[in-house]
């Protein structure tokens, strides 16, 4: 008995070295309860076990790179297209997400053969209807955030935030680096406070009267409105309204949660199966109802909370290739840092 337990103890030390046959290893940077529910659904359907290593995207990427060809990672799932693009650029991904099921489901600009978007989110402007008039907002664009009329009225997260990086990367892609550098300086000049806090904190700053407009992702407001974050946040969410910028040109900046196929994936086929599963209408509905993201595929509606309060009928930027977020990420950081964006 004693010997067996010692053996078990020693064996467990090397637990990662031994693999169970039918499984898929997911390096997961999305930590929603809803995702875990989806994974167990997948396991029930297919018998494929989903192994998760949760972490912040940066650390997970690092581990995939350090492990190199020996990495046990099959899929890398993260909440930003820029990250998937950057991983691709580092040569850590492989092609293979090319099945008909995937190609049919996901629009071209939201996928490559190495990674695909699994759910969309828009980065939009929130405003206080009490302090911002319709005229002020009329025709508002991301570019317009640098307009001096917003001086001292704008809140946005730090430049280190990946959503901001991707937003600025898309601006560089559309307007060029020099124009975006000037824009960044204008934005910094308009800030109501030194960037601090998460997306939700930006929205609440508008609700609390610290600022008049905020830049944040769509699903936060829905989450706050849902009451899942408590009565206070629900109350706060009611004090702000959403505005979709760039409706008159390319459309609102869209980002995705993406799943990327890791080079040397030991369970490649299973990984593709999982991605296909995440793109089925059932899974997409599960996302929209729980994480309040926009569906990746046609035929699924966003959550009523999102529809009613944000308005579904907006023009999404379907033109700018998401792959450019990764390519321009370095330039984006440079531009923001140079502008003194904390």
């Amino acid at each position: 008995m004693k010997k067996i337990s010692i053996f078990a103890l020693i064996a467990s030390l090397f637990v990662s070295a031994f693999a169970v046959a039918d499984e898929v290893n997911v390096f997961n940077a999305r930590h929603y309860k809803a995702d875990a529910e989806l994974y167990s659904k997948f396991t029930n359907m297919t018998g494929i076990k989903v192994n998760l290593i949760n972490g912040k995207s940066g650390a997970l990427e690092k581990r995939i790179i350090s492990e190199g060809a020996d990495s046990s990672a099959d899929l890398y799932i993260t909440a930003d297209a820029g990250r998937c693009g950057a991983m691709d650029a580092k040569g850590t991904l492989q092609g293979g997400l090319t099945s008909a099921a995937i190609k049919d489901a996901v629009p071209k600009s939201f996928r490559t053969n190495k990674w695909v978007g699994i759910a969309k989110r828009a980065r939009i402007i929130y405003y206080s209807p009490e302090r911002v008039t319709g005229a002020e907002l009329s025709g508002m664009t991301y570019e317009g955030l640098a307009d001096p009329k917003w001086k001292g009225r704008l809140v946005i997260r730090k430049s280190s935030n990946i959503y901001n990086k991707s937003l600025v990367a898309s601006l560089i892609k559309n307007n060029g680096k020099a124009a975006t550098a000037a824009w960044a300086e204008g934005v910094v000049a308009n800030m109501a406070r030194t960037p601090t806090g998460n997306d939700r904190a930006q929205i609440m700053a508008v609700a609390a009267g610290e600022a008049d407009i905020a830049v944040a992702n769509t699903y936060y407001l829905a989450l706050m409105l849902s009451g899942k974050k408590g009565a206070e946040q629900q109350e706060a969410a009611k004090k702000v309204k959403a505005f979709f910028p760039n409706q008159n040109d390319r459309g609102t900046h869209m980002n995705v949660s993406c799943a990327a196929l890791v080079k040397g994936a030991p369970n490649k086929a299973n990984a593709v199966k999982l991605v296909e599963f995440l793109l089925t209408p059932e899974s997409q509905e599960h996302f929209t109802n729980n994480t309040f993201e926009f569906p990746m595929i046609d035929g699924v509606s966003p959550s009523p909370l999102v529809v009613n309060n944000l308005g579904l009928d907006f023009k999404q930027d379907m033109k700018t290739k998401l792959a450019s977020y990764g390519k321009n990420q370095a330039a984006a950081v440079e531009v923001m840092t140079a502008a003194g964006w904390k």
Partner: protein
Amino acid sequence: MRINFWFISSLFVSLIIIVPILTVFSSFFENTTNYFEILKNTFLFEYTLNSICLLVSVLFLTFIIGTGSAYLVSFYEFPLSNFFKWALILSFAVPPYIYAYSLTAFFENYGTAYTILKNLFGEANYNSHIPKFDGMLGSILSISFSLFGYVYILTRASFLYQSQQLIDLGKNLGFSSYKSFYSIILPSARPAIVAGLSLVAMETLAEFGAVDFFSINTLTTGIYNSWIAFDDLAFANQLSFFLLLFIFALFIIENLSRKKAKYHFNSRGGFKRKEKFKLSKSKALLAFIFCFLVFFLSFLFPLSQMLYWTIKFPENLFDLDIVNLLLNTIYLVFLSSIILILFSLISNYGNRVSNNKILNLLSTLSISGYAIPGVILAVAFITFIAWFDETIIKTLGFLSIKKIFFGSILGLVLVYFIRFYSLAFNGIKSGYEKININVDESAYLLGYSKRKTFMNIHIPFLRNSLLFVGILISLEIIRELPITLILRPFNFETFATTAYISASEDLLEAAAVPSLFLILIAAFFIMITSKYILRDNNE
């Protein structure tokens, strides 16, 4: 010099610990990628400035809180003074990052403070009147309230041993109690205070969780970020080099002060004062308020905030597989403690029986792991294993060893080992130092073999030290964040990682449950060891 089992094993332990450290230093001279060459200078300046700002403020606060409370509870009698004596060390149960979550949860717009005000005084926009403790200020407060305990414990131990004679002398010379404090009590506790502050300084510089949560760029988060975001391991290593220079300076200061502190205790003959001074009513009230505030802010406040959220969002309680988290935590704690204690015992015993100068030097080197921030250690470990695997293992035609070390309990425990070895080694050493070498020799002369002496004389004597060390390691591992975050295996979470991940995903409410459990478990450990922690010596 005899090459024997003790030598080999100590050498082995030292190598395991020193290699990652050398990795950091060796890459200092590598060229960095020219990706951001220009911006680096600004970064380096900003990181250093932030680190210094954080360091100075935290040192100032912990000094005030730590020595202030230590002074009050060791010299005066006031309501609950005996309770505060040990209650103040409960602050160790709240790691800085959980403190940061609590601060944010309480003070943010529409946060707990808002709710309280609303319930008390009705609807109004209180948000603009509630101070915001985030960013640098938030980091400073989180770290200070979580770490002041180091200063408190060491200073209190030193106050306890200030002989009555010294204080009587002050009275005899006609000093007021203020003058006594500034010119007698404080100076003679200086080595202990410096030792405590250097520990605080080391931990502050190594701090990751809270600083990362508040997005403050310090040298430590800079290392992590330049490694993660810019792929610039060489720059990360250069930052590490600077940071380590800082930290080693502190490490040396701490060691010297501690020795001095010991000397002071001894030279004074160290007898305990029996009587505490009674304070007048108004002064007793002030002393009570000070200690209560410290206790409240350092422990009750984060505990209640986490408890409040757990109750307010009970669904999080059921979403979390608490049994599993608990088992994981126990497993890690158990395994690491056993390995650490075993090797520290071997090294200590080896040092004792072989009395070899090289061995002593090696063990001094190998306790330096504690000075190295967990982030750096984990990065260095991965760098080293990857290098070793590529250049040696694969060249020799063997299978890759990466999987054995990355994302396995083995790798995790190994890095814990490096980080916490000094804790175990010094803990056991201080126990061993109390056994006169004559005792060993007497045992031999009574016919006990070396093995029997070790088993029948040393182990029973060290039993308490071993228990104490084990719990100290457990406390550290329960609270540990960056190493676990970077190196843990699939499907393996601890309370700390769960809390961190939820918090970093804007799901602060969900971070409350694991945080609450972490605080409760850590507090439990602290309570059962409070006797040892508050014991008369300065270990």
